[in-house]
């Protein structure tokens, strides 16, 4: 595309198909402990 460059390669809607396995890290186990940051966790459902 000439005018728009898309940085993402998957959409949230598509993750509904096989999402929710729950094997991913719990956000407060990383470095928050006083806030909630879910969006930066990795998906383990490869």
């Amino acid at each position, binding site marked *: *595309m000439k005018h*728009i460059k*898309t940085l993402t390669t998957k959409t949230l809607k598509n993750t509904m198909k096989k999402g929710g396995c*729950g*094997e991913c890290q719990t956000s407060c186990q990383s470095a928050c402990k006083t806030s909630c940051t879910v*969006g930066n966790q990795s998906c383990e459902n490869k």
Partner: protein
Amino acid sequence: MVLDVCSGSVHVVDDLSYDVIALFEEHSEDEIVKKLSDYDEADVRECISEVRELKEEGMLFTEDIYKDYIFNVKQRRTVVKALCLHIAHDCNLACKYCFAEEGEYKGHRAMMSAEIGKQALDFLVANSGNRVNLEVDLFGGEPLMNFGVIKEIVAYGRELEKHHNKKFRFTLTTNGVLLDEEVMEFANKEMANVVLSIDGRKEVHDYMRPTKNGKGSYDLILPKFKKFAELRGDKSYYVRGTFTRKNLDFCEDIKHMADCGFKNLSMEPVVGEDDTEYAIREEDLPVIFEQYDQLAKEMIKREKEGNGFTFFHYMIDLTGGPCVAKRLSGCGSGTEYLAVTPWGDLYPCHQFVGQEEFLLGNVYDGVKRMDIVNDFKACNVYTKEKCRKCFARFYCSGGCAANSYQFHGNLNDAYDVGCDLERKRVECALMIKAALAE
């Protein structure tokens, strides 16, 4: 840059496409051409075609279809997959902002016994269903004040792995005072992640994180953290600080930690009542936003120079990242993630420990207060009025339940200052991605 909230798509756009996107849903193609007569018509029509294509592919103007999906997510049977073990309700520092009241959590000093720790792991295995990866954070107070018990708990976990199809990921959060060679060697063998607490510049750190006798702790811990980070090699670690109203120029502290050679950084805004001298207030937000901008620019500069570092709140995986079910279900406190006190009581998370109205049960008898668990399970971005229209709702997943309860007395609200900060951080994180993609 344009974020399509409900698909999570991030687009870098030129001026024309930015204008076209703003008009696209409410106007016909000819109307848009007419309104954007300052641009070349062929360019405008080409751009409209690109926008239309992205919409058809579900990457622009995506509707929020998850309200129904959330029903299924919330009806699911949840299992416990992570525990925060309060190895020590005691601390060898006296940090002024400590939510755990120097480790005592509204209670008394106590150390977890190996028996309680082992029982907690048994509880986790028994309540984790088919989940393979189980997380156990060794937390405090200062957990290294009870290092012998840590070793026993971890060894027991490794034994359990042999007999159950489970994998324990242990993490350790420490202030570094008792970090010695034995601990480093043990942690590098057994800990999937370590969180090392330091607030940045010496004067900032020493003011907020003194020892019990009032001396600063910076000189005591920094050499240890440097050595430890070096020994970690490829293994995960975070050097994590807290910033307060006393160091609103916290970007300098992050740069200081990066200059010390640390590569994985985190800096959390303190959460405190407005009447404390260090609490972040609404009036501080413009200064903090400027600092986040400055940090983003510094990270881009250093990355391009080949000397980059990661900042926890700016980490966004645009090619992977969590599924929508994860983003809808939040941090898991009270359902998938529980805290265990030194005497084995269960709470929804470490921040609720000591608040008796949230006592869920204990590691021997299990969770008895399913009514509380169900309150946490029901919490999501659609039950929170403030989240429904927020563009960042799929990044923070409705925010921290403990913050909501602390500031509003219920779980279905949101800590407003925290929301403002989260939105700013998401903006900066996306801006960095866009800048580095150029």
